[in-house]
């Protein structure tokens, strides 16, 4: 898999510092499974945290805290490395498969009209996390974002003002950009999208679909 579009380093720093929404962190983890470059960047970002940890002014633990923990050591189970279940279709990353299962075609897709279906992961918390399934030739209305929007392509491809996005690629967008993705082959496009704030659609078409899409 050749990946041409990666995360903004600022996003990986946010991931490493633990400040992304649950859905965005899930999306980052899904991409990391496929992308060595971003994995390396996360290692570097984690080092920032590790480095800060050695420099922070320590705060004393309460008296007896070590003894309490020592007393528990014999009764805790060792962590068993999780056996990775192989995705049935090979297109769903492990982190995502743990939540939705392995088969994109078996999900309970809800039609949004205009050749678009969605599946809401209902992760809770701020922002939204969902899969979009877009038919060939369909374009999502022009929209901007009041926060950040991460997209990971799982099947097919699309093109927008930035370029062409294929399986494994991520689009990492913020409020600076207005874009209109269009599915650019005969294959449908399925992507995972995580936001930390609602999208803002522009134009008449966008205003019409906003209430239905609820993105």
């Amino acid at each position, binding site marked *: 898999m050749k990946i041409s579009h990666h995360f903004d380093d600022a996003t990986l720093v946010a991931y490493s510092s633990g400040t992304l929404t649950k859905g965005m962190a899930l999306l980052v983890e899904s991409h990391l499974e496929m992308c060595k470059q971003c994995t390396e960047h996360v290692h570097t970002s984690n080092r920032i945290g590790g480095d*800060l940890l050695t420099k922070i002014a*320590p705060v004393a633990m309460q008296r007896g805290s070590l003894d309490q923990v020592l007393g528990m050591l014999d009764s805790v189970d060792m962590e068993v490395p999780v056996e990775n279940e192989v995705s049935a279709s090979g297109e769903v990353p492990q982190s995502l498969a743990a939540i939705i299962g392995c088969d994109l075609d078996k999900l309970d897709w809800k039609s949004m009209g205009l050749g678009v279906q969605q599946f809401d992961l209902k992760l809770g*918390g701020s922002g939204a996390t969902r899969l979009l399934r877009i038919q060939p030739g369909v374009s999502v209305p022009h929209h901007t974002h009041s926060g950040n929007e991460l997209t990971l392509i799982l099947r097919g491809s699309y093109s927008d003002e930035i370029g062409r996005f294929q399986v494994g690629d991520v689009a990492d967008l913020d409020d600076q950009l207005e874009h209109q993705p269009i599915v650019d082959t005969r294959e449908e496009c399925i992507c995972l999208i995580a936001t930390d704030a609602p999208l803002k659609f522009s134009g008449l078409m966008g205003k019409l679909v906003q209430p239905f899409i609820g993105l």
Partner: protein
Amino acid sequence: MSQDKPKGADVNAAAVLLEDKKKQIRDEWSAVLSSLAESRDKIAFSRLYEYFAPRVKAYIIRFGMSPASAEELTQESMLAVWRKAHLYNRSKASASTWIFTLARNQCIDRLRREKAVEYELPEEEADPDQRHYGEHAVVAKRMEDAIAQLPEAQAQVLYLSYYEGKSHSEIAEQLGIPLGSVKSRLRLAFSKLKAHWGEDSEN
């Protein structure tokens, strides 16, 4: 190696020696952690605990936890060190980096649970005393090495991300700058630190 800071003589020594010393300390902790998987040695664990637990606690407090929760989460984090020691790979991360990620994950899990509960509550006003804590703290506590060499604006956004667990949007709001500026500062900081550390090895 249980010393937190170099002795007086080292302070006056050449910066190179100080760097060597730090690297040595870091390597030693990594070696202790690495051996823990096989040895299951409680004395080695106690040494790790005495060095790292107060630091993890300080980190968790800055991440936004009460001291009582921080105490408990630190104990859980250190228990995770024991439980997962056999998963630690010295060639991939230093002890401090690895323990940081364990502590961070404890914080994330806890905060997500708490935030899920708070979700229905009306938004609260930011505590005025907390509001500029990050800025003061960055000025007050000079970070060393690569991070200290960053322009303050860049160190500040790193600090707010890692130590206070603030999202980009929250940082933008707190500092009164656009979201794009937060990101470009983080990007710049990251590229400098990346160049400093290199990407392939911890040391």
